[in-house]
């Protein structure tokens, strides 16, 4: 199978490294970062591209841009891993639309387009008889979408709740374990590279809310937008609050919750017994799904990281390869 990778940041490079190391039958015919690109119908030398990126900051030639690749390059599947813009979804949204209209499969880790335009993109993909997969948009390495759409196919999803943001979980773990203030724990998260310079997206619960919208729309068949989610972040939490929870053998975690029967779509800090399976440490993610036949299923794993997110993207690619792209 031939793929085009748009975006050569942490996730894009993680995918490239995995493809270079493993013999997965996947050939990269086009590649772009924000300032350069490369089109090689016979296949790109991945090791060389990684080395070039490392040395020069560019993965290819400056005259080739991501939109050109989406429109003109030869590929079976577009891998859209450019940075997320949660407001417009661009430029990823245009890249994805273009690929689908050309009858190409799409795999993305980009939350913007899936949160904003899933129904439209899915309709277009169905019309063009191509696959649109987005496992990497929620909970990094955890095969959550796959588990719910395939492993649990036929079940009615009654409720979903979990820890969807590793940065917040790290901060809360540190506040709880060490009695740190929110500010101290945030500083530590930044030093360790777990929090962005502007942590608003994470700590205000917006990132978790976007993931909740994706899950609500893709797995629960809703038509939710970000504004439908009731969002409370963790930035107002005090060490005292965690101590008060502690006195009852509990702690506080930022929980995203979808409960269609009660019309709940909410991200908020919640008191949760320390023995609960969702109380995971550090940057881990954990999600529980309540279903009618399978009962409760809890998945725990790494929610971010270059290799971890690449794992989810590659899982999607191989699923497409085995089902749709015969003889490749």
């Amino acid at each position, binding site marked *: 199978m031939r793929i085009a990778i748009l975006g050569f940041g942490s996730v894009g490079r993680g995918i490239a490294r995995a493809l270079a190391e493993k013999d997965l039958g996947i050939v990269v015919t086009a590649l772009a970062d924000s300032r350069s690109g490369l089109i090689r119908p016979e296949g790109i030398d991945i090791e060389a591209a990684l080395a070039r990126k490392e040395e020069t900051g560019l993965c290819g030639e400056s005259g080739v841009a991501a939109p050109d690749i989406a429109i003109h390059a030869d590929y079976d599947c577009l891998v859209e891993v450019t940075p997320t813009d949660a407001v417009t979804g661009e430029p990823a949204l245009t890249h994805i639309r273009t690929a689908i209209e050309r009858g190409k499969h799409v795999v993305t880790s980009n939350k913007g387009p899936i949160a904003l335009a899933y129904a439209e993109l899915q309709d277009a993909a169905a019309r063009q008889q191509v696959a649109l997969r987005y496992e990497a948009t929620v909970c990094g390495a955890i095969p959550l979408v796959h588990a719910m759409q395939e492993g649990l196919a036929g079940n009615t999803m009654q409720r979903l709740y979990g820890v969807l943001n590793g940065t917040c979980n790290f901060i809360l773990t540190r506040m709880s374990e060490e009695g740190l203030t929110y500010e101290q724990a945030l500083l530590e998260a930044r030093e360790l590279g777990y929090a962005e310079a502007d942590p608003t997206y994470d700590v205000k619960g917006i990132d978790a809310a976007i993931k909740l919208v994706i899950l609500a729309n893709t797995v629960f068949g809703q038509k939710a937008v970000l504004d439908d989610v009731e969002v409370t972040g963790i930035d107002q939490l005090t060490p005292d*609050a965690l101590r008060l929870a502690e006195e*009852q053998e509990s702690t506080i975690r930022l929980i995203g919750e979808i409960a269609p029967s009660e019309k709940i779509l909410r991200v908020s800090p919640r008191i*949760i017994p320390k023995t609960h399976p969702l109380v995971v440490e550090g940057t881990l993610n954990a999600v529980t799904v309540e279903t009618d036949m399978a009962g409760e299923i809890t998945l725990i794993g790494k929610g971010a990281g270059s290799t971890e997110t690449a794992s989810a993207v590659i899982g999607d690619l191989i699923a497409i390869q085995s089902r749709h792209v015969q003889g490749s």
Partner: protein
Amino acid sequence: MKLEMKDTPGQLVAALKPISAVGGNIIAVIHQRDTLSTAETLDVQIVLELPEGRLETLLGLLKEQGVSVVRIGEQRLLHQRSLILIGHLMHTDLSDTVDRIDQTGFAEVTEISLVMPAINEPSSARITVRSVDLADMHRALDILRSVAGQKQILMIEPLEAV
């Protein structure tokens, strides 16, 4: 419940001990000695709270102590939720916040643990709300949510009933 026990020293304590042993909470002990009575036994009424499902264990323990239970009164199953509030709790009139629940008649705030750090810093409190049935609990939490909204208090709810 109404208990009947031997009128000898130490018997009342013997009857009360098992209650705490099963995690119960004694609300009232009514113990009136009838001076005219010549009976060798003593009647004591106890009002208590027990965690769900512990009544059978308690009855067994009382029997071992030689105390017989004459009558078990109404069992009021209590629903309980602990919440954490963060904000300017005193300045926004904490007793009013509590009153809004107590006034309903179907739920009440039974416990508050308040931590106040430096002046002008937000304080944190854990409050326990109790109600007779679950629907009442949901109504009480709705009220509290709206009060917290008005007073700009962050209300942290449990993920599950705790």
